């Protein structure tokens, strides 16, 4: 029912549009890692495929939104990629997370370390 509070559940990576646009065939796996970070799913039976699967369930409706962004490799170089990913919405996420609030950072430990 609609009034139950459902804690937000996020899965997968937050891809940055600027980085995704820099994808081009021929990139090595290391270069892709630098651009997009580690894929959320690297299936053991598909060594030539990285899946950046991301899902999000927020608000009270309880519907989960899923977006799959898949990269295909030939050997070590990127061949093609397809699928969609969540657009950049850092401000919205920051506001959502602010609801949880932060604990004060341990002050002395930081200072003494510096």
């Amino acid at each position, binding site marked *: 029912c609609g009034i139950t*509070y459902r804690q937000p559940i*996020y899965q997968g990576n937050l891809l940055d549009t600027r980085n995704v646009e820099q994808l081009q065939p021929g990139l090595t796996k290391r270069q892709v890692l630098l651009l997009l970070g580690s894929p959320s799913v690297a299936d053991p039976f598909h060594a030539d495929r990285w899946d950046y699967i991301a899902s999000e369930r927020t608000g009270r409706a309880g519907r989960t939104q899923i977006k799959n962004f898949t990269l295909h490799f030939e050997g070590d170089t990127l061949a093609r990629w397809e699928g969609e990913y969540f657009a950049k919405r850092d401000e919205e996420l920051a506001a959502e997370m602010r609801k*949880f609030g*932060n604990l004060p950072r341990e002050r*002395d430990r930081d200072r003494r370390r510096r």
Partner: protein
Amino acid sequence: QQFEPFTVADIRVEGLQRITAGTVFSYLPVERGDLMDRNRAGVAIRALFRTGFFNDVRLDRQGDILVITVEERPAINKITLVGNKDIKTDDLMRGLRDIGLAEGETFDRLNLERVTQELTRQYNNRGKYNVSIRPSVTQLDRNRVDITIDIKEGKAARIRHINIVGNRNFEQDEIRKGWESNTSNWLSWYRRDDQYSREKLSGDLEKLNSFYLDRGYVDFNVESTQVSISPDNRDMFIVANITEGEVYTVSSIEVTGETILPHEEISKLVFLQPGMTFSRGLIEFSSDAIVNVLSNIGYAFARVTPIPEVDRENRTIAIRMFVEPGQRVQVRRIVFRGNNRTSDEVLRREMRQFESSWYSQAAIDRSKVRLQRLGFFETVDIETPEVPGTADQVDVVVNVKERQSGQLSFGLGYSQLAGLITSVQLSQDNFLGTGNRIAVAVQNNAYSRRFDFSYFDPYFTDEGISVGYNVRYSEFNRGDFNVAQFTTDNGAVQAVFGLPITETDSVGLSIGIDRNDITTVDGLTPPSLIQYMVDTMGDRARFPVFCLADEEDPDAPCVETPGNNRKWRVNAWRSELFWSRDSRNHFFVPTRGTVQRLGAEIALPGSDLEYWKLSYQYSRYWPISRALVLNTNADIGWGRGYGNTKGFDLPFFENFYAGGTRSVRGFEDNTLGPCEFASPLSTRCQSIGGSFKTVGGVELIFPTLFDTDAARVSAFLDVGNVFRNTREFDSGDLRASVGMALQWQAPIGPIIISYAYPIRKKDGDRLERLQFTFGTVF
């Protein structure tokens, strides 16, 4: 002893006593047939020394046989410590074992030297500079030794003099507020703040730095500090020489670097504006705020570095806050450690951070608060180690230390109210580690019998819908409960459902049926109560019926004379709607947050007596300083009849009461509010409670005592009273008392002892300054 290299035909070991030849061979890097030369010999000797078994190792050659003569170190037979008071014997023994000095171990004279140094250092750290440590070794047969360490601790050196030189703009006591080191004062026996320790002093000097840097003294510098001790090692003197420099104002402050979020939004987090006096505290506060925002959305290694440019002429400072977000980080796995009894799911369902998801500091902080609020753990610490081999993945490791989260008391429970309770009470908040709450009570004593079973599952569904039920049967003679004289036999069955509506709020519904047999005694029960029953439910036959024989005429039928008891059976089915919010940051020792509950209970139409009751409990915790917490609380209750009891107040057996350990301390339990005499002859004015209750209070909670967080001392002001109904409310009648209370979460259950002095009382109030409850009373 040079010898030319030769091939080893055989190896012979001499001087062995305890160690077997096999052991030597297993550590010896040389075998038969090897070529033995000078450096191989050196390697062999070093290898044998490293085993720690031998005092001396010599290599000789007899023809082609390599002869190894060793002198075994003696074994330690017994270690005795004499004269240690400040540090317990088994702590010392553990320390010695770590250095390799334990019974049965091999004895190495070098260790003894290190032990003396180590113990002297430990005592010096406690300010005991006069300590003298004399270890003595007595040789025994079979190459064994006894070790006795004679410790003379001596008196701890006390800080007599702390002097800050060069402070022009502030007084010394203002600067030294909050320091851990202090000169001897009347509190020193407890806080030990006059005992010198280097760590404490360096911490205090850091506070001195912050004191000035937070007030704009950019050039502030502690030129030098001197620590000296009196010739008799009894008094310590600390001198800190400072140069304050001038106050600087901020000329400009701007955020630079990669801010991920829009620049204006991040700049809003900078609390220091141009024109304000420079303050390092505000700079750190601002950089924390920015780091928090970024680390909440994946940038776990975000860093903000303030880069100052000081303009000495007109004493201004321009600051660039250089933001480095670092890599966006994923959480790979969440692992729990230390939950030997609590199931993994009970912890995992409190987590707001998920696996295979982007890192969020806020989610992790929120999870820590929720885990602490369960009350199952003494400590909850969360670490986020990097996953080896990846640049952007971390694991979340949650270390918990479990606490005895239940009370199991057999037979003995005592509260001044109920006298000696013989009861079996089991209440376990984390029953078998499943996170469900179970409470079973079988109780009987002078005035009441009771059976109570309740079960509550906070996570009936994964989303946090809670379900619970309880069954209760009890016979109460309220008279001995300081309340008006009547007995209630009550049976009830109830089911409770809870529904979270936000992160901290939840609403709930409970439905239940119950039967209440009210028995009144004419002449003992106050007449207005009996009248209420008669007016609402009609009269009932009196019982028991006596049959008095007529003495003169024995065979005439006895004359029935009714007793003076009357009994009413009140059946009701009731429901309660409630809303509750709990944003406290800890279960036992909250320092921040509020807990409040608003409930509307109604005896539904069709019940014998129809009435409703509103109740509101509120408690808020304010952190005043690092150690002091202020708590403000209120407990309001109001009820009236409706339907078949329209125009009447709340039925008397549902009345609110006040006074006692859980409401206004300093007054006997349940004795506040209106009272009535049962009959003109009776002397005791029986308190009958009221349908309108207003109780509140303020409590100042002191730092934890006996360095466990389960014991707390507090000073309180309680105010409140109960009124027949809202019309009769009169603030002049509110009673008040001030006092001190000790609350201790003992293993067998909570113990609360309070001493209160009533400051607003009327004659006829029944006072009780010392009150305590021991073991849980349902």
